[in-house]
């Protein structure tokens, strides 16, 4: 039995009050240790905002392994991110679907944030050129932003 399985069994054997106390205590410790999210850039710079969004998304969802920023060759105000998500359930050959995540209206500079979740297997296919990206998504100059540590 692995260490995580042993931990699960220990937790499962606690009485209800102890279980809630332990799990809530652990959750609060984790939240307290989490570094504060970075502040957004003060002026609109597409690359800076892309890195800021990527960092925030990596901090929010632990199952996102890495974020791929696709600046392409155009200088429009659209930020395109591929997010390699270990919990995504799309079939390997499913089309990559970008979603307009919406930008905080109080942020500087009007811009759009498009995010496409892909599975690790889909990411391998994208890199190998076997899975097309959506129209307007240019793989050249891609920048991978991953987890630290």
């Amino acid at each position, binding site marked *: 039995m692995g260490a995580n399985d042993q931990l699960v069994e220990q937790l499962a054997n606690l009485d209800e009050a102890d279980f809630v106390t332990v799990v809530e205590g652990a*959750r609060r410790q984790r*939240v307290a240790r*989490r570094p*504060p*999210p970075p502040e957004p850039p003060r002026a609109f710079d597409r690359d800076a905002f892309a890195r800021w*969004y990527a960092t*925030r*998304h990596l*901090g*929010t*969802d632990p199952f996102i392994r890495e974020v791929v920023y696709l600046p392409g060759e155009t200088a429009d105000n659209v930020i395109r991110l591929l997010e390699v998500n270990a*919990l*995504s*359930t799309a079939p390997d050959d499913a089309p990559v*679907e*970008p*979603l*307009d*995540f*919406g*930008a*905080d*209206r*109080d942020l500087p500079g009007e811009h759009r*944030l*498009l*995010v496409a*979740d892909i599975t690790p297997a889909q990411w391998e296919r994208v890199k190998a050129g076997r899975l097309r990206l959506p129209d307007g998504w240019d793989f050249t100059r891609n920048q991978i932003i991953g987890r630290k540590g």
Partner: protein
Amino acid sequence: MLDGQRLYLIQARSDLRAYDLLSEAAPCHRIHYLQMVAEKLAKAYFWRQGQAPKRRHNYFVKFLRAVAGRGDVGRAVGIGPNSHWENYVAGTLWLALVIEGMAPAEAGDGPNAEYPWPHEAPAHAPASFHFPLWDEINAPRGRRLLALLRLLLDRFEQYG
């Protein structure tokens, strides 16, 4: 607001009313409606790009991730500052994922809120199955997610 957004919002709100009316029904029916409310709220949001989301059921977690990054949405529902809003939403993602998974198409041959399973040789019916998810929904974490869902539906016109 685009027509696709408006119509999905209408249906999501109606599904929520049905969820509330089903208070005496077996948990599977409430879970079913909760999953549909969450999915349609998410699709109402993502219709913002002017085209239909795919005919899949896994948009609720993506929606929560999207609004978590928008402090203006947190302010619209009365939760702030931005860092607290982001943590608040992040704390609901795991339960949101389980709710998404209650749609039969996402559940595969596992527990789902609508049909007996496994498909080829049913051994369980939703109406007689004990869903641990239902216990979670009625625990503090679940009530927090439900409260958030209601606020996000109620205030959609402010951020959607």
